[in-house]
């Protein structure tokens, strides 16, 4: 199997998971790109996402939701079989306010997949990850026994 078809299958899997997730749909989150252990997602600016009615700045919780979902997608894309994962903890550092009217992207990468735990980190941004709105790290529990298999294959 070629690396290309592998990537395409990963992308399709993540796309399906996103479609089945009501809250991601409600926020109009879309998948920009995905590869094994990496995901990029986008949320378009919408009035309903505003957290401060005086400034029009998007709610911190929107950034939290986008990062949680993107980090989760990165973990999904690194697993060999489709497992259930649960966020154990999530840390968000808000670097600067998101700019009203602009789409928000998030890039996430898996740091390590262990036996039943996965670590990932990511960044929310407008133009490039080097100019972050927020950065994030998280630990996830891989819920089913098959997590062992996924972990073993990644040393």
């Amino acid at each position, binding site marked *: 199997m070629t690396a290309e078809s592998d990537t395409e299958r990963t992308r399709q899997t993540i796309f399906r998971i996103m479609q*089945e*997730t*009501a*809250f*991601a*749909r*409600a926020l109009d989150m879309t998948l920009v790109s995905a590869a094994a252990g990496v995901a990029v997602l986008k949320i378009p600016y919408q*009035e*309903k*996402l*505003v*957290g*401060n*009615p*005086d400034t029009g700045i*998007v*709610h*911190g*919780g*929107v950034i*939290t*939701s*986008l*990062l*949680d*979902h993107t980090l*989760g997608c990165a973990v999904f894309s690194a697993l060999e079989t489709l497992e*259930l994962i*649960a*966020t*154990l*903890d*999530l*840390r*968000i*550092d*808000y670097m600067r*306010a998101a700019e009203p009217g602009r789409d928000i992207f998030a890039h996430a990468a898996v740091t390590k997949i262990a036996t039943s735990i996965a670590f990932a980190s990511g960044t929310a941004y407008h133009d490039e990850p080097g100019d972050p709105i927020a950065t994030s790290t998280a630990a996830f529990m891989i819920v089913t026994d098959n997590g062992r298999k996924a972990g073993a294959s990644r040393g």
Partner: protein
Amino acid sequence: MVEPAATKGPAARTADVATLLERIPFARFLGMEVERKGNELTFILRYAPHLIGNPILPALHGGVIGAFLEQSALLELVWDLRLERLPKPIDVSIDYLRPGHPVDTYARAVITKRGRRVANVRAEAWQDQRAKPIAALHGHFMMSPAEAQKE
């Protein structure tokens, strides 16, 4: 002239927080409400199908719970410190302790420390039993320079 928050009683300040919740589009989108019992605010997240993040369990999205706790912490600061403006989050750390079932969720927040510009807040969310929290947040929030000068 509008009465400043500094001289208002608990009931009037709770009404202000409820009005603020109505004005925040994302809080409305989540479906948040507030109730006061004595000197404690309880924030309520009404269950709705669009809040689901895991369709298999089903369970509330981690982002929903995080956003609910962050908004609860922000409004506790506004209420408790009699702020006129919403503080800005600096960082938040969320521990997910149990799955969020598709039912109403409650939260209370406590100000751990108030500094000149920065406040540290802890918040907990629960569903059926207060003693079994589904998530806990702690975070730092920046108050506007104008608010800091009030002290």
